[in-house]
């Protein structure tokens, strides 16, 4: 062979990561830094009668021990996303196995760990509420004595958000339009089905890490997170500090998927450092990260009608989410599950109610596409079931009912901006829908859907263009592996008219970086992208205005060509021109940009959705009737990027999300045995590995050019997770005639379903 030429040069991001030069919070060490470890609750629910830290404090090398009592002295010592109920450390009670009870600061992790084991906590065990049913039982004890603080969720027309609607219910979200009761009454057929969604851990390889240092009344925190400005606000509020007294550095993040969204232990580490009077690093272990937040398990009951012509009429949904011990992002997950439950279809009426239930389990939090994954699983399973029951082709039925281009998702909301039928055609062609099935094989398809870009979201950005034609982009989108640094630099380079390798992505530091709302909801290239393009345009505008002034013309006369401007046939190199005017040191043209999606009270979520994220999924499976093992032989997953700024990165996002969903479908879940998780260790918490991959695993990227981002792009980071589980369940029914309504599709569940089917078959054959 003539040798594979490796070109073009790798991006800044890829170069750093393949050489080991990439710096994560995990890698940062400060002079004089001490180390923290947390003591965690062995009880699901218990009153803390006392904590004796004397033996721990007496150990050589222990700097201090922090308990909930230290936190109580702070200005506002609770946190959460929009409802705040989580203390920095447990105060009067622990509420799940793994709840943080005390924090030791010592010279090294081993000493801190040993000191944790020397702390004596006097617990009075209380009844545990290990699931939704237990928490909602009439005699269930209340997990909280007081309602959660915090601003809650402001919703728009057709929606309502209620805190503490019932005992042990954190909040509920209702979403309705049309007259669901009347539509269901008038329907030719009505089907009611329930679906259970399993609880997942994020499993990011870099555990949560925070390093805090106090200097002159300010706290500086190096942290792996997805939203440094949200955290700056939280730490300032908890400590009663002005925003300027809190500074967050967010280096590269070793996997997020929502697990590093929103406040976790950042205020606690600041408190540990303040009490220790030294910089303190708290790096959780992988096991501890598994106990920090999870994807919400839930039970969804759907009652859906269809008319005599096969048109969907109305859907009623009851959604019960296991929110775990503390609110974290549960309120927003409830809102998004309730809102998204209709999926990509035309309904005359929707009546949806989602409740987040408090239980004594790991808090439910953000996880890639939250609400959308739960809703898509239930909805796309039921849509398939309805198609079978009325004798319709699952693809034809979906096409008949799918929202057309620009058709609004709901009254007052934005229209569909992807060609759903085109995506269905693509996935059905790739999965071989019309070809004869191989013996024992089944095919399934699904269209997952969620809204994207955020609700009333905003971002600001700055672009600095040097005299030599290099640019630096400053914005707060966190690189968590989605490739946003490369994409944002590419957008800036396009606007500036300079080569991409001349653009660098600045380190994120809240003292210098323009703020945003956080790296959530697949918003980076759209929301921040728009701000960056505006900033780049302004920097370029300054440059061209300067050059025009020097050349005695107007900017419109000039063409930027390489690092020179052309005026007519003459080329004028820019660098000498700039140095002549500004001096030898040179100059930077600095442009600012901003984007704000407006609030609109007539939209159900109080802002029109920015863009829609469909996920076209197809699966081919076989089911082993002896062992109950489901083999996914082929998995197809596609999304619409509007415009793919980086096609390979888009594919990587779609495939990576699909792999997480495949893992959930086949075996992955956090399981409880009694009051404690039984598999919350890296050895036991099984995630997808290379030998588990289907023989054929294909992603595809469509570019329907209808997104609101630069050049009609839209985000796809969460897409790939949405439709996979339902597509596989649909394929299992096609292969084996059994309908699985709970995840994962374990051999036990498959065998149970096959057994349940057996008598019916026997009857037919007898």
């Amino acid at each position: 062979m003539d040798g594979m030429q490796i070109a073009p040069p790798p991006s800044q991001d890829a170069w750093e990561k393949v050489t080991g030069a990439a710096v994560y919070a995990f890698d940062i060490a400060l002079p004089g830094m001490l180390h923290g470890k947390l003591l965690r609750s062995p009880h699901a629910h218990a009153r803390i009668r006392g904590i004796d830290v004397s033996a721990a404090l007496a150990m050589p090398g222990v700097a201090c021990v922090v308990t909930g009592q230290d936190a109580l002295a702070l200005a506002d010592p609770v946190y959460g996303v929009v409802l705040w109920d989580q203390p920095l450390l447990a105060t009067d009670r622990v509420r799940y196995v793994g709840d943080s009870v005390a924090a030791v600061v010592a010279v090294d992790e081993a000493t801190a760990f040993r000191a944790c084991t020397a702390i004596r906590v006097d617990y009075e065990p209380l009844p545990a509420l290990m699931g939704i049913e237990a928490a909602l039982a009439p005699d269930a004890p209340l997990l909280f004595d007081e309602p959660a603080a915090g601003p809650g969720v402001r919703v728009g027309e057709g929606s309502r958000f209620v805190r503490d609607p019932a005992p042990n219910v954190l909040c509920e979200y209702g979403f309705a339009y049309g007259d669901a009761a009347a539509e269901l009454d008038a329907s030719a057929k009505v089907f009611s089905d329930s679906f259970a969604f399993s609880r997942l851990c994020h499993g990011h390889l870099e555990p949560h890490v925070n390093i805090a240092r106090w200097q002159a009344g300010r706290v500086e925190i190096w942290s792996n997170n997805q939203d440094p400005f949200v955290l700056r606000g939280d730490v300032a509020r908890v400590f009663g500090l002005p925003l300027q007294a809190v500074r967050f550095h967010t280096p590269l993040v070793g996997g997020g998927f929502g697990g590093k969204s929103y406040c976790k232990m950042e205020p606690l580490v600041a408190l540990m450092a303040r009490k220790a009077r030294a910089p303190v690093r708290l790096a959780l272990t992988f096991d501890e990260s598994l106990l920090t937040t999870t994807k919400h398990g839930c039970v969804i009951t759907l009652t859906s009608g269809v008319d005599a012509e096969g048109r969907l009429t109305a859907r009623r949904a009851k959604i019960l989410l296991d929110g775990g011990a503390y609110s974290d992002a549960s309120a927003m997950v409830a809102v998004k599950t309730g809102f998204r439950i209709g999926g990509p279809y035309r309904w005359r009426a929707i009546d949806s109610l989602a409740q987040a239930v408090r239980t004594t389990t790991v808090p439910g939090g953000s996880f890639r596409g939250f609400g959308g994954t739960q809703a898509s699983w239930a909805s796309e399973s039921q849509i398939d079931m309805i198609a079978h029951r009325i004798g319709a082709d699952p693809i034809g039925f979906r096409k008949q009912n799918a929202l057309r281009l620009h058709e609004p998702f709901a009254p007052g909301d934005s229209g569909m901006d992807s060609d759903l039928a085109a995506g269905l055609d693509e996935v059905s062609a790739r999965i071989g829908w019309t070809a004869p099935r191989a013996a024992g094989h089944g095919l399934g398809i699904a269209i997952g859907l969620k809204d994207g870009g955020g609700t009333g979201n905003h971002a600001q950005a700055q672009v600095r263009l040097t005299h030599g034609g290099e640019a630096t982009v400053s914005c707060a989108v966190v690189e968590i592996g989605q490739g946003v640094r490369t994409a944002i630099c590419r957008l800036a380079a396009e606007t500036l008219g300079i080569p991409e390798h001349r653009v660098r992505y600045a380190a994120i530091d809240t003292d210098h970086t323009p703020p945003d709302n956080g790296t959530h909801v697949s918003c980076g290239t759209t929301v921040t992208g728009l701000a960056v393009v505006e900033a780049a345009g302004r920097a370029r505008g300054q440059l061209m205005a300067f050059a025009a002034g020097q050349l005695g013309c107007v900017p419109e006369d000039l063409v930027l060509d390489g690092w020179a401007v052309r005026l007519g046939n003459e080329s004028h190199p820019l660098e000498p021109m700039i140095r002549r005017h500004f001096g030898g040191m040179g100059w930077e043209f600095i442009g600012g940009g901003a984007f704000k999606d407006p609030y609109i009270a007539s939209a159900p979520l109080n802002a029109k959705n920015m863009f829609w994220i469909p996920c076209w999924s197809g699966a081919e499976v076989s089911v082993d009737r002896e062992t109950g093992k489901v083999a996914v032989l082929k998995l197809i997953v596609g999304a619409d990027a509007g415009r793919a700024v980086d096609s390979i990165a888009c594919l990587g996002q779609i495939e990576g999300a699909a792999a997480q969903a495949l893992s959930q479908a086949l075996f992955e879940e956090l399981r409880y045995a009694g009051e404690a998780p039984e598999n919350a260790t890296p050895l036991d918490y099984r995630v997808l590995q290379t030998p588990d991959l289907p023989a054929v695993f294909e992603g595809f990227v469509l570019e329907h050019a209808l997104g609101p981002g630069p050049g009609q792009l839209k985000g796809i980071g969460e897409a790939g997770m949405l439709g996979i589980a339902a597509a596989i369940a649909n394929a299992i029914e096609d292969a084996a005639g059994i309908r699985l309504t709970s995840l994962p599709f374990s051999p036990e569940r498959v065998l149970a379903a096959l057994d349940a089917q057996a008598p019916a078959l026997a009857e037919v054959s007898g």
Partner: protein
Amino acid sequence: MTGMAITLSVNGLARRLTVAPERILADLLRQELGLTGCKIGCDQGVCGACTVLADGVPVAACTTFTFALDGAAITTIEGLSEDRLHPVQAAFATVGAVQCGFCTAGMILSTIALLARDPDPDEATIRAWLGGNLCRCTGYARIIEAVRLAARTPEAV
């Protein structure tokens, strides 16, 4: 605890070290030698993020006592390239096999060990070999593609 005198060659540089008996290789590399490209993910020898090569053999640095490698030649991700990428690094960077990057060093070093044993691995061999390296981001498709690309690059093996 008494230190143990050992010799290690780390990325080609011979070092005499005195290590505590319980000194874990990953901590030595990261904390004493500044080689933070060796990542600790699970800290239990499960995820493969900390993979380094000891005399060409992949080992989980997070669960390996340093003294056990007395006399060995250790290669970390930092030892693969200076101004030019190793072909396996280049392949990973080119085909989108890198997302968050936390597994990447371990993946690349495992791939180098694979190609040293089997310069032209088939799909099943690649999948089986990388089974000990978890990646939560990519879904592995592009990683496998990078291994295939590297195998076609003569100087990679």
